[in-house]
């Protein structure tokens, strides 16, 4: 089993698809991951399951890989239902989680925006580029840069999970370049394809960060590091000014007024 623990998750799932299904049941969504080079032991460790759940999960994985082995089933006390864990973020991480909320509000509007682009005679280039500006300035420069330059520096940024995050950010930037090209050329299909792909990517990405990555980083931070990171993030925010987040919040509100009203009309 130790050998398996040190294997890359993608390899394991490719060889034993059942393992992917088991992980999925425990809310560990490695199957659709774009990289999959995390080691099984890290994957399990990072999710911070309670000891009972972890024991059962490991037992089931071992059974799936070595069905002929006589593995003893861990005794699980079913009367002791584990309370759903409430995630408590440190203040600097909480700020990043709050920024996700505004980004998710844009993601939620994307299907309506796509429909609007598809049904209008001429592509509303101005609107598409305004959304791109939100994504590039607020989501990428303001938010992702704090992750890349500050938060990720507190853990080994060579760690696979961090590499996956960097890669997601990069793939997102690629989609947005395509959206801009589509808007310049008035190519509706190109806009649609890439903005929807961006929406899927970021939805998964934010979920991974909120539920897995941020709590994992928080667990490793000392009190001193939390204070230091809080200061660095505040300095980064101050360097762009208070007006920037307010401006993009207003943009989202306007967009919601435009598109949510259309839905209710």
């Amino acid at each position, binding site marked *: 089993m130790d050998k398996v623990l040190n294997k890359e998750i993608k390899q394991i799932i490719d060889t034993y698809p059942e393992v992917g299904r088991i992980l999925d049941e425990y809310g560990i969504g490695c199957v659709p991951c774009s990289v999959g080079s995390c080691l099984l032991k890290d994957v399990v460790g990072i999710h911070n399951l309670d000891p009972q759940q972890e024991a059962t999960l490991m037992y089931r994985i071992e059974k799936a890989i070595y069905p002929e082995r006589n593995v003893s089933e861990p005794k699980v006390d079913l009367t002791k239902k584990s309370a759903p864990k409430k995630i*408590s973020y*440190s203040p*600097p991480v909480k700020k990043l989680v709050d920024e996700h909320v505004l980004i998710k509000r844009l993601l939620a509007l994307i299907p309506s925006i796509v429909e609007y682009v598809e049904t209008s005679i001429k592509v509303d280039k101005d609107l598409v580029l305004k959304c791109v500006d939100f994504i590039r300035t607020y989501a990428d420069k303001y938010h992702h840069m704090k992750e890349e330059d500050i938060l990720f520096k507190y853990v080994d940024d060579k760690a696979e999970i961090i590499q996956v995050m960097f890669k997601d950010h990069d793939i997102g930037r690629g989609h947005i370049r395509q959206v801009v090209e589509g808007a310049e050329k008035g190519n509706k299909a190109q806009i649609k394809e890439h903005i929807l792909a961006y929406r899927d990517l970021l939805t998964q990405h934010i979920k991974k960060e909120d539920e897995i990555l941020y709590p994992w980083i928080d667990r490793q931070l000392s009190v*001193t590091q939390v204070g*230091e990171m809080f200061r660095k993030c*505040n300095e980064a925010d101050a360097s762009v000014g208070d007006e920037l987040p307010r401006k993009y919040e207003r943009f989202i509100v306007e967009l919601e007024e435009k598109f949510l009203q259309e839905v209710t009309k």
Partner: protein
Amino acid sequence: MSGCPGSRTMDFSEKTNQEGNDSGKRPSQLRQWPIQMHLVSPQAPYFQGKDVLLAADCAAFALGDFHKDYLKGKSIGIACPKLDSDQEVYVEKIKSLIDDAKINTLTVIIMQVPCCFGLAQIAKEGAEKASRKIPVKQVVVGLEGNILSEEWI
């Protein structure tokens, strides 16, 4: 079950579930004097830029590993929100620790009895009055020295 839980008599002398051991010596992690909140000055060098612990008087006695797990690496102020007088002074001192001494973080460590939450309230008020913002953590200690909760507030 009546009267104030903060002063109700309880006896845990029969407690046997003792993990850990008594071998080895534990050095004190205290790096300053004085420590009482009325006596400390936010101007003291030991507060500047530091992580500060605001501890209820009883906490250090209840927690077996207080020095190792909580005091280590931090500066401290102690107080009792039930018995101390002039507690407005505490609020001002917290504010000054944040704004003038520019402390890095504040950890409030209190007992689980209701009156002890007054100390967390003092910390919150001081932090709200301050113009700088810093992370504030609250740790609640059970009467038998167990950690009941530890969270950023």
